[in-house]
């Protein structure tokens, strides 16, 4: 097996790594780059716990090879907070108790951010469809949907403030 050398950008930082061609982007993030926010739930693209963005597009990192990251811009849950300042989604997940065991949470946060980036004013139905690729076995989803809805309001307020 011949190792692959990859130059990529993760959460805005230029990063070089070497990986085996069989390793997924999720393997690389967790085992080589120490970014263990992304979780492996199913490893087959069904549960969304490993959700990241590649060039702004929401994907399951378990269905992307590490080698495919060459020249791309990767975004993970570690890039959500601004230093110590939590993203509105993170804050609202805590305030709304939208997590229990927490394994699915990073994936939900990344998927919800992808939704709010393209639609800061989603309906409940739009939220539920956008998060249909993320499975949670604890919360029953209701609190997650409420948290995303509340965070959307916060994001809209932030955007209005910036415009002024």
């Amino acid at each position, binding site marked *: *097996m*011949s190792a*692959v050398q990859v130059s990529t950008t993760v959460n805005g930082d230029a990063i070089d790594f070497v990986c085996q*061609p*069989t390793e*997924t982007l999720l393997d690389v993030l967790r085992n080589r780059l120490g970014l263990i926010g992304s979780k492996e739930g199913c*490893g*087959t*693209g*069904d549960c*969304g716990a490993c*959700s990241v963005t*590649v060039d702004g*597009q*929401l*994907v*399951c990192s*378990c*269905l*992307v*090879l590490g*080698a*495919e990251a*060459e020249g791309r811009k990767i975004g993970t849950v570690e890039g959500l907070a601004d230093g110590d300042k939590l993203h509105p989604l993170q804050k609202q997940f805590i305030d709304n108790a939208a997590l229990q065991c927490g394994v699915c949470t990073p994936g939900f946060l990344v*998927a919800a951010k*992808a*939704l709010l980036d393209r639609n800061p004013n989603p309906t409940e139905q739009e939220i539920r*469809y*956008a998060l*249909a*690729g*993320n499975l949670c076995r604890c919360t029953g989803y209701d609190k997650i949907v409420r948290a995303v809805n509340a965070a959307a309001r916060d994001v809209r307020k932030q955007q209005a403030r910036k415009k002024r």
Partner: protein
Amino acid sequence: MRYEAPSTTREASALLANAKGKAVVLAGGTDLLARLKSGDIEPDLVVDIKRIDTTQSIKRMASGFRIGASVPCVEIGRSAALKRAWPGVVEAAQLIGSDQIQGRCTIAGNLCNASPAADSVPALIAAGAKASVVGTAGRRTVAVEKITTGPGKTSLGKDEIVESINLPKRPPRTGDAYLRFTPRTEMDIAVVGAGVCLTLNGKGEVSKARVVLGAVAPTAVIVADAANAIIGSRLEDSALAEMAAACEAACNPIDDMRGTIEFRTDVSGVLAKRAAKIAYQRAGGK
């Protein structure tokens, strides 16, 4: 396993032709990576075609649309022109998986993965789509229905890749639709799929039709008798009933956890009728 990401189809075909052992093509990877993970396949070479320019975009041309083999389905959904021309194809492509899957999965991959339940395939066949196939011997254009030969099997040579899926320009008074049955709204695999494309004459009668079923046989099935049943009609109940019966007769499904033979057979006619009505309306029929 070796990973290669060539920048031209010529290089890609040469890599596949010269591969020792098992070689596979990687586009969106939503099927391939799951199969790698399960150990279902252990390839010696993976050829990633996403770095090939000609696979990366949707092009509108005088002859229709050219959808590059590595264009993810989310992009297909964003193409307003494609949606206007072939709404059935776009809806079928958008039924595949979650937002995460949509961000990667491709219709060329859906075709080449050769699942009998592939959602985009019946819609593509109904619309008369062709695959542009490149190999070491050059390029050939193949009707989409000629690509899949059985579950997981295609007619592609070892050195061949699908570079794009080409849709014709939509003829006047023509409409298409695709419907599938799944036990729940989202995140599921078709138990039955039905794609219909109709062209009407000036009097609002169906002059041309294509009815294609998915998930009821080893490959998608073109049901000529179903099309003939509605040609010359305005989709009156008797014509639709005859079409549904023809669909049922064309089914050769399996029994599995998603549906029984009886259920799949029955639903094929129901879905074909509903899809035909949508296609008829889209073609301008009243």
